[in-house]
C-alpha cells in the first residue's frame, strides 16, 4: 500500500467503531485483507509498506509475524463484536504485500486459520495470495491449497528482461510459466499482474509481455500503468535523467493494446485495470474468474485489513493501521488497536465514493446514483464518447474504452 497514510480522526485504543458501522451490516458481505510487509528486495518503483530486513525488533520479525497478525484477527473479532457488527462468514480473503509468499506457507495458513476460527467462511469463498514467481515452489503452492487458498496472483509485471531490470524485479521471465503450472497442479486459480509504461518499454515489449501472459493461460489479468511515486528509487533515477520519464499518451496506447489483445483472447474487462476470462453477458463481474475481493473494494463492501499500514472499511467507517511493523506489533502486544487514524464518512462523501468507485466497473454506475447536479453532465459524456449511450438509456453509466482512460475526468464532471 502507498507509503503515506491519510490524515484522519484519532482512532480509539479499544478499536470500537462508531454506531453507523453496524447499520445494515447483516446485508453486506465481509472480507479480510492480510498485509505481509516483507520482501526479499525492494523494487525501484515500489512505495508500498514493506521491509527487507528479516529481523525487525519488538515482535515484528518475519518469524513472529504470523502470531502477531493472528492476534490482530482476534482483536478484530472482539472489536467488531463490541461495535455491534454481527459476525459474518468471510466471502473473500486476500493476502497482499510486500511478498506474502516470503513467509512459509504454514505461517500464511496459520493467519488464515485464525480468521476462519473467528468468522468462518462462506461456501465457495475466494481466498487469494499474491506471490512472487521467485518465492514459490510446487510444495509451497500445494501447502497453500491444502490450507484453503483458492487463488494465487503472480507479480509477473513483464516478460521482457530489460523492463524487469528497470523495475528491479529479480525473477527471470521463464520462471512465470513454470510457477503458473505448479499453481495449476495444486488446483489454484491463477491471476497475473502486469505493469505497462515502464521507462524504456516499447510497444513491442508490451505486446510481448501480453502474449507471454496469455501463453500461461491465466484466469485473470490485472494491468496497471506504472505510477512513478515520489520518494522511490525510480523517481530519483528519472529526476537525475538516468531513466526516461513515463508518458501518459504512451500509457493510453498500451492500455488500448492490452484491452484489444485480452478481448481477442476471451478476457473481458470488469474493472478499469482488471480483465477476467470468460466474462461476458450482462454482468461481467459476475463471471467466475473476476476477483471478488477486488470488487468488494469497488462496491463499498466491508473488510478488515490486518497488518501494518493496512486499510479497513466497515459500514462507512474507514481506518488504517500504523505503518511500521514494530509499532504495529507493540500496539497489539499491549492489547491496543493498531489503528493510526480513521474517518467516518458522511452521506455526501459516501455518495462521492459510490460514483468514484462504481464508474470504474463494467457493470456501470446506476444513473440514480449520480447526484442531481451531475445529471446534466451525462449527455455531455455520451456526446464526448466517454460513456456508452445505449447502456445509459437503460439507466447505467458504463465507460467506453476512451472513457476508461479518462475515468477521473468523467467522475469530476458527474460530481458537483
Amino acid at each position, binding site marked *: 500500500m502507498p507509503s503515506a497514510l491519510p490524515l484522519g480522526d484519532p482512532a480509539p485504543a479499544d478499536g470500537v467503531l462508531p454506531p453507523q458501522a453496524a447499520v445494515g451490516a447483516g446485508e453486506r458481505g465481509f472480507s479480510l*485483507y492480510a498485509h505481509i510487509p516483507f520482501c526479499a528486495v525492494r523494487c525501484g518503483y515500489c512505495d508500498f509498506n514493506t521491509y527487507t530486513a528479516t529481523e525487525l525488533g519488538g515482535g515484528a520479525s518475519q518469524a513472529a509475524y504470523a502470531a502477531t497478525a493472528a492476534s490482530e484477527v482476534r482483536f478484530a473479532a472482539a472489536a467488531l463484536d463490541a461495535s455491534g457488527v454481527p459476525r459474518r462468514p468471510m466471502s473473500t480473503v486476500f493476502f497482499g504485500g510486500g511478498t506474502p509468499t516470503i513467509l512459509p506457507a504454514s505461517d500464511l495458513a496459520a493467519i488464515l486459520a485464525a480468521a476462519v476460527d473467528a468468522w468462518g467462511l462462506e461456501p465457495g469463498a475466494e481466498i487469494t495470495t499474491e506471490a512472487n514467481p521467485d518465492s514459490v515452489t510446487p510444495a509451497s503452492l500445494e501447502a497453500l491449497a491444502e490450507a484453503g487458498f483458492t487463488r494465487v496472483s503472480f507479480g509477473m509485471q513483464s516478460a521482457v528482461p530489460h523492463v524487469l531490470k528497470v523495475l528491479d524485479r529479480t525473477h527471470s521471465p521463464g520462471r512465470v510459466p513454470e510457477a503458473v503450472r505448479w499453481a495449476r497442479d495444486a488446483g489454484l486459480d491463477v491471476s497475473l499482474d502486469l505493469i505497462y509504461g515502464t521507462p524504456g518499454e516499447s510497444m513491442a515489449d508490451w505486446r510481448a509481455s501480453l502474449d507471454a501472459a496469455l501463453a500461461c493461460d491465466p484466469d485473470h489479468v490485472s494491468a496497471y500503468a506504472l505510477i512513478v511515486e515520489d520518494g522511490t528509487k525510480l523517481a530519483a533515477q528519472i529526476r537525475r535523467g538516468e531513466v526516461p520519464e513515463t508518458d501518459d499518451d504512451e500509457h493510453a*496506447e498500451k492500455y488500448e493494446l492490452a484491452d484489444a489483445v485480452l478481448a481477442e483472447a476471451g478476457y473481458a474487462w470488469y474493472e478499469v485495470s482488471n480483465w477476467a476470462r470468460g466474462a461476458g453477458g450482462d454482468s461481467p463481474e459476475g463471471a467466475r474468474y473476476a476477483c471478488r475481493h477486488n470488487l468488494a473494494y469497488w462496491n463499498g463492501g466491508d473488510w478488515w485489513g490486518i497488518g501494518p499500514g493496512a*486499510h479497513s472499511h466497515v459500514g462507512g467507517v*474507514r481506518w488504517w493501521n500504523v505503518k511500521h511493523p514494530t509499532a504495529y506489533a507493540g500496539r497489539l502486544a499491549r492489547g491496543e488497536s493498531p489503528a493510526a487514524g480513521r*474517518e467516518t464518512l458522511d452521506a455526501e*462523501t459516501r455518495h462521492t465514493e459510490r460514483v468514484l468507485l462504481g464508474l470504474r466497473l463494467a457493470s456501470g454506475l446506476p444513473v440514480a446514483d449520480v447526484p442531481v447536479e451531475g445529471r446534466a453532465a451525462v449527455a455531455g459524456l455520451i456526446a464526448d464518447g466517454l460513456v456508452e449511450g445505449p447502456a445509459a438509456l437503460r439507466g447505467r453509466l458504463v465507460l467506453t474504452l476512451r472513457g476508461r*482512460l*479518462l475515468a477521473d475526468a468523467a467522475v469530476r464532471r458527474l460530481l458537483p
Partner: protein
Amino acid sequence: MSPMARTAPVPAATDPSIIRNFCIIAHIDHGKSTLADRMLQFTGVVQPRDMKAQYLDRMDIERERGITIKSQAVRMPWEVEGTAYALNMIDTPGHVDFTYEVSRSLAACEGAVLLVDAAQGIEAQTLANLYLAMENDLTIIPVLNKIDLPAAQPEKYAEELANLIGGDPADVLKVSGKTGVGVEGLLDRIVADIPAPVGDAAAPARAMIFDSVYDTYRGVVTYVRVVDGSLNPRERIQMMSTKASHELLEIGVISPEPIPSKGLGVGEVGYLITGVKDVRQSKVGDTITNLSKPAAQSLGGYQDPKPMVFSGLYPLDGSDYPDLRDALDKLKLNDAALVYEPETSAALGFGFRVGFLGLLHLEIVRERLEREFNLDLISTAPNVIYDVTLEDTSVVTVTNPSEFPTGKVKEVREPMVSATILAPNEFVGAIMELCQGRRGQMKGMDYLSEDRVELRYWIPLAEIVFDFFDQLKSKTRGYASLDWKADGEQAADLVKVDILLQGEQVDAFSAITHRDKAYAYGTMMTAKLRELIPRQQFEVPIQAAIGSRIIARENIRAIRKDVLAKCYGGDITRKRKLLEKQKEGKKRMKMVGRVEVPQEAFIAALTTDESKDKAKK
C-alpha cells in the same frame, strides 16, 4: 572632532544661520540608511538602546528591500566650535520612479551628501539625482561609504567622484556607516560647507511641501520646508494650488519621533497636521501660506504626478473584488501618484486598470496589496499610454491593449524616454545591441573613468517597461545601472496582437507591439500557452492574430489518459483525496469558451521569463 551638542537649538526660535538642510543621494544598498542611523546615534537623537537597524525606513517592505519609498526629515543637533547647529536630514527616495519626489526633496535643501559605495562606484540613478542636485545649485559633499569592506577601492572611486563634480579626490570623505568611522567628520563638513538657508522672516509665510504621508491615527502628515515667514499652531493655512484652507492642528519637528513645536521659522524643516485624510489634499510640491496673510506668489515647481505605466490588477478569487477596491482606496490615501479605474476582462473577471509612475512603483503597490491586505492578485503585462489617431482624425487614448481601436488607424504615438545607462566599458557592445533591439536611438556616450561608461538613449517607454532591466542586468552580469525620464513621444508602426484559444479572444493576453515584433510576440505567447494550459478532452488551437490575420499557431493535443490505474489494498481515502484535489484545481480554472485555463497559466504567461525562473527557485 565635535562633541554632541549640549543644548539643541529650539524650533521656531532658531536663527537660519545655524540651520543646515541636507539630503543624502545614494543608490539602493549603498548604505544610506545605515549612515543615517549612525548620524542619529552620534548626534544623540536616538539612544543606543532604541536603535534599530535602518531606523528611518518605516515600512516593512522598505526595510526588506533596503529602499526608501517615503522621505522624512530628521532634525539633529550638532556642535562645532561651541555653536550648536540644527541639522535637518531630508531623506530622499532612491529610485527612478520617484524622480519628482526626489526633486522636491532636493529643493528643500541647500546641500547634498553624495554617498557612493567604495566597492561599486556611482550608479545611474545616483548620477541622475546628482544632476538634479547640481541643477538645484546644491553644495555637494562627496562621500565614499563602506571603506571597511575588503573589496573597497576608495582611491579609484574618489577619482571618479572628483571627475564628476569637479574637485580634488582628496576632498572626498571616506566613511563607514557600519563602524561609524568618519561619520563625525562628515557632520562637521556639513556644518562647514553647506550654506545656511536664506529667507525673509517678515514676509508672508511660504513653505514647500516635499512629502505627505497618510497615518491611520493622525491623518495626513505633511513635511514642509519653510522658505519665508513662519507657520504657527492653530493658524489657518492655505494650499496655494487649490486655495483650500485648513487649520493647523499640530506643527513640529521630527527628532526622530514627532515633537510638537511653537511653530517653524525661516529655513526650518518639519511636519504639520491639519486633519485631512487624503494625501491628494496636501500635494508634494505645493506651497503652503497663511490664510490671513497669504503670499502673492507660490514657490513654483509644482506638478501633478503623471502615471506612465498601466497594468490590470485582478483578484485571483473573484469574490475578493470589493476587498481589492477597498485596499486601493486605502493605498491611495498615501500615494498621490496612484490612479485606477474599474475594468472588466472576459478572462480575468472584475478588476482595475491601475496607473503607476514606473515598474518599481507597480511592484511596490502590488506587493503592499498582497502583503498588507492579504490579496492574491493577477497583474496583466504592463503597458504604456498610446495616442491613436483614426482616419477621421479623432484621437483615442489607449491605456489597455484591449481598447485599441479596430477601425482604420492613421497614426499611433507612443511615449519616449531618455535613458542613461552606466556600466563597465566591456559591456558597451552588449548594451548597444540590447538598446537597438528595443528601438532605441543612441544620443551619446561618455567615459566616467577609464573603464566606466555612460550611454544615453532615446527609447520607447514600452520597450523598457517589460523586461528591459532584467535583460540589462543579465547581459552585464549585474553591473549596469539604469535611469530614465519621460522625454516626448513618437509616431511608430504599432499593432495589436490578439491571442485566441479555440477561436475565443483572451483579452488579458492582447498586446500592442511594433509591427516588426508582432510575430515574435505571437510565437512566444502561443508557445508559452501551449506549455501552460493543460491538455483538455478535445484539441485546442492557440492562435496569435493581428486583426483577422493569423500570424502564429500552436495546438494543444487532446488528453488521452486521466485515470488512476490502481487502488491498492483498499486505500480509497487516498483516491478520494486525489479527486478532491483535482476538483479544487478545477475551481481555480477560468473558463475561456470550453477551455479550462488554470490561474497559474495566466500568471505565468503574464510574467517575464526571469521572474518565472526566480519563482521556481
